[in-house]
């Protein structure tokens, strides 16, 4: 994700969670978080449990989110220089002299007492912990959906009812792992009416307008297959695809695994033979532990888990 993409992402997250953007530029947002976003992003569980317990009006935090550090700092520097000069001039003014005198008699007044509340700054770049937190926050409230396609305006004949089909949509992450790892993301849609399975389902959804409300003049086709059947279809489609892949990486990992196990055997077997009786069990335990570690490290595996999923009601009978 580059700076622009991060910026767009944050903008959409703030909108979706109804945060109040106080100020923004292509490089930053100053934003007062909504209660929901505050709970997710500010790491204040004690505060929130207090608010919930006494039913208090929550005071959410305001953040400066910088999405393009370089640009933002450059702009900041450009605006900061003139005021500094002004400051130098002002030092000679009577007002400044008065302030200085006040300072002498009243002692040092900490700037934060006079200034408005501090706005913490977070640089959001790909890899930043705060951005990861935003990712997690999005996921926490972006995992399970139940949506309807909004019909095109032109076909709004009040006397005809458009047939809709329910689809099980799921985005799956496939991990190919040994001591190393790579990933793929697959998106499937299974028609609950017919069992038709579509790949790249998520991309197709992105071209539609979707809403959580059932539109008028729409009827949903009766489901022809069970959810369990739909799940099986999705998994089998994926499995069939995965079977056709090249598994030389797994063969390599297995070879490394065997080699490592052999090496360990070469070390521990003579050690076990020569070990005194009282040490034997300790050595054996360590031997077993080392073998387990090596398997943990190298054993090739493919795991499938869902990123998110939902039921989507789309126009037509498929």
């Amino acid at each position, binding site marked *: 994700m580059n700076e622009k993409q991060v910026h767009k992402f944050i903008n959409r997250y703030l909108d979706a969670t109804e945060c109040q953007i106080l100020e923004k530029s292509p490089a930053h947002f100053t934003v007062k978080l909504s209660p929901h976003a505050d709970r997710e992003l500010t790491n204040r569980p004690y505060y929130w449990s207090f608010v919930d317990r006494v039913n208090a009006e929550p005071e959410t935090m305001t953040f400066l989110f910088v999405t393009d550090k370089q640009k933002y700092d450059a702009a900041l520097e450009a605006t900061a220089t003139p005021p500094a000069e002004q400051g130098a001039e002002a030092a000679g003014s009577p007002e400044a002299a008065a302030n200085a005198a006040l300072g002498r008699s009243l002692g040092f007044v900490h700037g934060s007492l006079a200034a408005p509340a501090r706005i913490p700054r977070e640089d959001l770049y790909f890899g930043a912990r705060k951005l990861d937190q935003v990712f997690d926050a999005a996921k926490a409230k*972006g995992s399970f959906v139940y949506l309807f396609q909004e019909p095109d305006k032109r076909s709004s004949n009040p006397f005809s009812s458009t047939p809709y089909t329910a689809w099980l949509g799921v985005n799956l992450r496939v991990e190919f792992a040994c001591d190393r790892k*790579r990933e793929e993301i697959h998106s499937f849609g299974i028609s609950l009416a017919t069992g038709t399975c579509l790949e790249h389902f998520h991309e197709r959804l992105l071209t539609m307008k979707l809403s959580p409300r059932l539109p008028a003049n729409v009827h949903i086709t009766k489901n022809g297959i069970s959810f369990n059947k739909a799940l099986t279809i999705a998994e089998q489609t994926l499995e069939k695809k995965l079977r056709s892949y090249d598994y030389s990486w797994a063969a390599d990992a297995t070879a490394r695994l065997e080699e490592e196990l052999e090496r360990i055997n070469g070390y521990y077997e003579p050690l076990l033979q020569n070990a005194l009786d009282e040490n034997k069990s300790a050595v054996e335990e360590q031997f077993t532990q080392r073998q387990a570690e090596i398997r943990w*490290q190298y054993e090739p595996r493919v795991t499938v888990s869902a990123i998110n999923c939902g039921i989507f009601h789309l126009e037509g009978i498929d």
Partner: protein
Amino acid sequence: MFNSPTSQTASNESGSAIFTRKLHSLVDLQCDRTWFEELQNRLTRGGPWDDWTLYQLTMEAEQAKRIESFEQLLSLRSLPSFEPMPHQISTARKVVHEMGGRAILADEVGLGKTIEAGLILKEYIVRGLAKRILILVPASLVLQWVRELNQKFGIAAVAQKKEHTWGYDVVVASIDTAKREPHRDIVLGTDYDLIIIDEAHKLKNKKTTNYQFANQLRKKYCLLLTATPIQNDLDELYNLITLLKPGQLGGQSEFAANFVVDKRLPKNEDQLQEALSTVMIRNRRGDGGIHFTKRFVKNIPIELSADEKALYDAVTGFVRERYDESGGDMSSMLSLVTLQREVCSSRDAVFLTLVNLFKKTAEDSPLRPKIWELVDKIKNIKANTKAEKAMELVKEFGEKVIIFTEYRATQEYLLQFFRAQNMVAVPYRGGMNRGKKDWMMDLFRGRAQVLIATEAGGEGINLQFCHHMINFDLPWNPMRVEQRIGRVHRLGQTEDVKIYNLCTLGTIEEHIVNLLHEKINLFELVIGELDHILERFENGEGTLEQKLARVLIEAGNDDALKEKLSELGSSLSRIRDEVQTGSSAYAAAPDLLVKLDSLGESVEVRP
């Protein structure tokens, strides 16, 4: 709930929702169906349903984070705040892609082993291959590691403080703490995805409890960091490698037969190198480029005023008397030696210690009047010759100067003294909290000409913008002198560094300056060399500091003292010569028993 299992143990635990079948003769396919159960739950309950925009954002985030290939180094795209050097990147790549994540990082000092380890750590985190991480380092480096990982790598590392700290994913701890109960059980009971051990040469002896502890840790990936993997004995190397990959060099007897002629003499070096190349990387400093700007060291001899000299002699007499009375009991004497050192610094320093001593002695003790005599002598002193000299130097430079002293009282005195002469000076000491330290640094950088510091160690004080340094007094622990110099003389310093040692003639200080300067050649050593010199010198029999104090007390008169000090001195210079073995003052780290040149690249480091 969608988090994929990062380890096999985890997947076994989550049980029923995971379905496993054979995908390929070598590979099982595991499908996590928790999502499906939850979806059905929500369907029966009629919700709650999530937001479509957040659904899309979740997918976008996952697509951005996706690990496209086995090969790339993904950590690089998420480190905007700094750029690792090419040899660090290639090291990280090699460890992750060719060594299966178990390696000894043995770069020479100053090439950034910490950065390399951080890159590898980040890579495994980004790839979802490591979550539970343990970093074992010497106690003095814990905070530095935590800060580095947080700031440079955006890794939420936590310094181990209490028992519950072990619950965090990335914990930095000292091995001496970790190996003790109640921590021991927790640590040994955890499956760590990655363990990093810094200064791993301290684990070379397999009989030590530290080694045995390290050997019991359960880990998937493991990095051992050391600049000196094989210094004294080939067995050291064997022991280190056994921690990582037991059997890599064969069993103990095969190793001895195949690679060792004598404890200190390898054979079949080519084969040994080949065997090592799969577990060890060692980058070296190049021979070209100048690594650092120069250091100039000057001792400024100071003649004490008559009053000051009188006080010094009186204190020395006082200490000797106590020693004779004690009948040679050393333990109570060490604190008295401090008195002598303090006199050389300022009357304020010695006054404070005397007052404390007075409070501690019984009311009817014959010591009390004697202490008062000394205090009277202090009252006679009207000026501090050293401070005046320091002021003179500061004015002469007309540039920023950092002044180091060992004593708080001296620091206070100097602050006052400089203020009285309209010289802006700011203090810096260990007890300040982080914010105050940063503030003092900013003041020194911006407005003050002088920084007066009692602490050189610790993290974060980098003073490359200053290249004058005055040692108002010298610590007896050479490492602390080295730390002082390191604040100023480091990568990023563009000027030659000038170091001035204020040295009161006819005192113990004169001897110490001579010892550190002439005998160890402390001020011209390369970073890291001092470590080795001291390690060999001390050899487990007490620190140089302790030995010095002993010599000082036991010597009856000045001549005996000189003789004993010169013995100490010559044994130090001998060790220094051994460590440097014919290399120039700016040469790389000390020679190792085995040439490891093929295990890394040569790196030109320029400030």
